[in-house]
Structures are given as structure tokens and as C-alpha cells.
């Protein structure tokens, strides 16, 4: 099964880009979300909302908007913006399957976020494309029958057996 593994080393360059984006835009938080709806990593203030639900909704929202833009005859989708009364979200795609998501309030502006996010995308795009090339070349320690057996036991315990 193709699985995608992120090691600590991979996060170093990602963190640099995310923290710079956070600093330069004065955003509240930035998130990387896989298009399948899984949260990859995050930076900034995130304690006041459910990050797991947030990631699943961001992925669904982005994909729905991509379909919408296709219906309208567009070739690709540059970004999705959700404009709230106090907090807004800007999302854009990199490396075909990762969504960079910036949450910001009135201390920033959409124009600034869009500009800086685009810069971050160009840096992260390379990082993730390199990562995807490594898929299958590195066996994670979880890809073992022992892990599967231990997880199966946890499943049995969870479901009452």
C-alpha cells in the first residue's frame, strides 16, 4: 500500500517556510493538509478549534471548489478564500496534493496573505515533490507485521473483545 512517511528531517525545511509565512503575514496560524483530509503539520495559534475536523473540511472545500471551477470552464484553481466576520482562511494547492492553508484576522490582509502564500508555495512545492519521490524507498517502522498485530489487539480492546 502506498504510504507517505514524514520524518523529522522533512519537517525542518517545512517549518522554516511556515514560520516565515506566519511572521510575514501576521496570520493566526498556517496548516498543511493532505487532499485526503489529513493534517500534516501546523504552525501558530491553533488551540481554539478542532484541527482534525478543520483539516477534513479544508480538503473537502478545496476539492469541491476545484470541481466548481471546472464546471465553469476554468483550468485549475489558484486559491479558495473563506471570508469570515473576524477570521478568514486562504487555501492554495502545492505539489498537486497538499493544501497550504492560512488563517488570519484583521491584523492581516487577504492581499498580503495571498502574496506571501504564493511565495511559500513555490518553496514547499519543491520540498514535497522531493518527498513524494521517496515514497516507497524508505520503509517506515510502522510497516511491520508486529505493528499490525499490536494495532489489531488495540482494535479488539476498543470494540470490546
Amino acid at each position: 500500500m502506498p504510504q507517505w512517511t514524514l520524518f523529522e528531517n522533512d519537517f525542518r525545511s517545512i517549518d522554516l517556510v511556515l514560520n516565515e509565512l506566519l511572521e510575514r503575514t501576521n496570520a493566526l496560524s498556517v496548516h498543511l493538509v493532505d487532499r485526503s483530509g489529513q493534517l500534516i503539520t501546523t504552525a501558530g495559534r491553533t488551540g481554539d478549534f478542532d484541527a482534525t475536523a478543520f483539516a477534513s473540511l479544508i480538503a473537502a472545500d478545496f476539492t469541491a471548489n476545484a470541481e466548481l471551477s471546472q464546471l465553469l470552464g476554468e483550468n485549475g484553481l489558484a486559491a479558495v478564500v473563506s471570508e469570515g466576520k473576524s477570521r478568514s482562511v486562504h487555501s492554495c494547492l502545492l505539489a498537486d496534493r497538499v493544501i497550504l492553508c492560512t488563517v488570519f484576522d484583521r491584523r492581516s490582509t487577504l492581499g498580503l496573505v495571498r502574496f506571501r502564500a504564493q511565495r511559500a508555495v513555490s518553496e514547499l512545492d519543491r520540498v514535497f515533490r522531493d518527498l513524494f519521490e521517496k515514497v516507497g524507498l524508505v520503509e517506515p517502522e510502522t510497516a511491520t507485521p508486529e505493528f499490525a498485530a499490536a494495532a489489531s489487539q488495540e482494535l479488539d480492546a476498543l470494540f470490546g473483545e
Partner: protein
Amino acid sequence: MALINHRAREIHFKIVYYGPGLGGKTTNLKFLHDRLPPERRGRLLSIATDHERTLFFDFLPIALGQVNGFTTRFHLYTVPGQVYYRLSRRAVLQGVDGLVFVADSHPAREQANRESLADLAEHLRTMGLAPAQIERIPRVFQWNKRDLPVTLPVERLHAALNPGGAPEFEAVAREGKGVTETLRTACKAVLVRLSSGPAAAPPPALPTPRP
């Protein structure tokens, strides 16, 4: 596609409940949400119409706890079953690790079951997955609504929908019968697939899907 995060020491799997409209997919997730201890599951997120029909998806995250130092999480999704939500279903299928097909045992839904399964196969192809990759996605079948006064024989459901012999369970999801068995089997199949490598194929690039 499973995501293994070594920094957070987490591993995530995505399981999608597929099947015809009103077949009981959401009921499966609602039962699991009610049954599981709060510390092991997140909020049940439903994007539904005013009439409680699934509009986009339902979402329920489940945490297994620490396994060999990794927090193992399963993210459960349902798709909207109604025929005209085709594109929404494809969106939800992105990155799927395991499938649960919830079939309706009512005789009048026999055709709907078949169409839904064909729809699933078509979406997986459209997403750029090769036949061998599709074949390797673990799947479990659930014959739901076995408490109806008249039901399709299990043998008939099996022959029509599951000739390959994937694991299958009879269920009455609104009473919780067969619900945890179905999920447990799907989760285990996904775990076995993870460890049975090789993780050879790179993740398919996901360009904007074409209708």
C-alpha cells in the same frame, strides 16, 4: 493513502463508507460515535441537508491510542449516496485506504446496490488508480437492514456484489448489529495491507478531477 508522521508519532488511515442512498452509512457512523468512549473518538461532523440526508460527507475520527509508540488514527468518512452527488463522492474518495460497502438488503434496492458499486469502480478508475492498485484497496461488505420483513438472500447479495469473497457482515445498523464487526475487520485489513508492502507505487498526483 496512509500518512505516517514521525514528528507527531502518528499514523492516519482513511476509511470510506460507500453505498446507495439511505442504505445506512451515516447510521453506522452515528452508532460508532455513540458507542465509543469520548476520549477515543472526535466530533461526528455531518454535512447534511435540512432533511438529514448526507449532502457532502460525514466524518468521524477514531483514535486507537499508542501502538508501538505511534498514535494510530482512523478517519471514517461516508459519501452521499444519492445518484446526483457523483462528484462529491469522488472528492471524498481521495486518498482512501480502505472501503466499507454498505448494501441495502431491501429487494427494491438491489439495482441501486449494483449501480453504487459500479459507480465506486468508475470513480477509482477516474482518480488515476491502476487496476492492480484498486484491487489492493481493502474492502468489507455489509448487508444492512437484515431486520426488514423481506430481505434479499445473503447468497444473492454475495453473488451480485462480492463475488471476490471479501469479508462480509449482516447488519442492522440502527440497532448497532454488525457495525463494530464491520469496522474492526476493515481496520485490520488496512493494517495488514500496510505491513504487507511493498509501498512501491508513488502516490498518484491528484490533479483537479475531471467530471
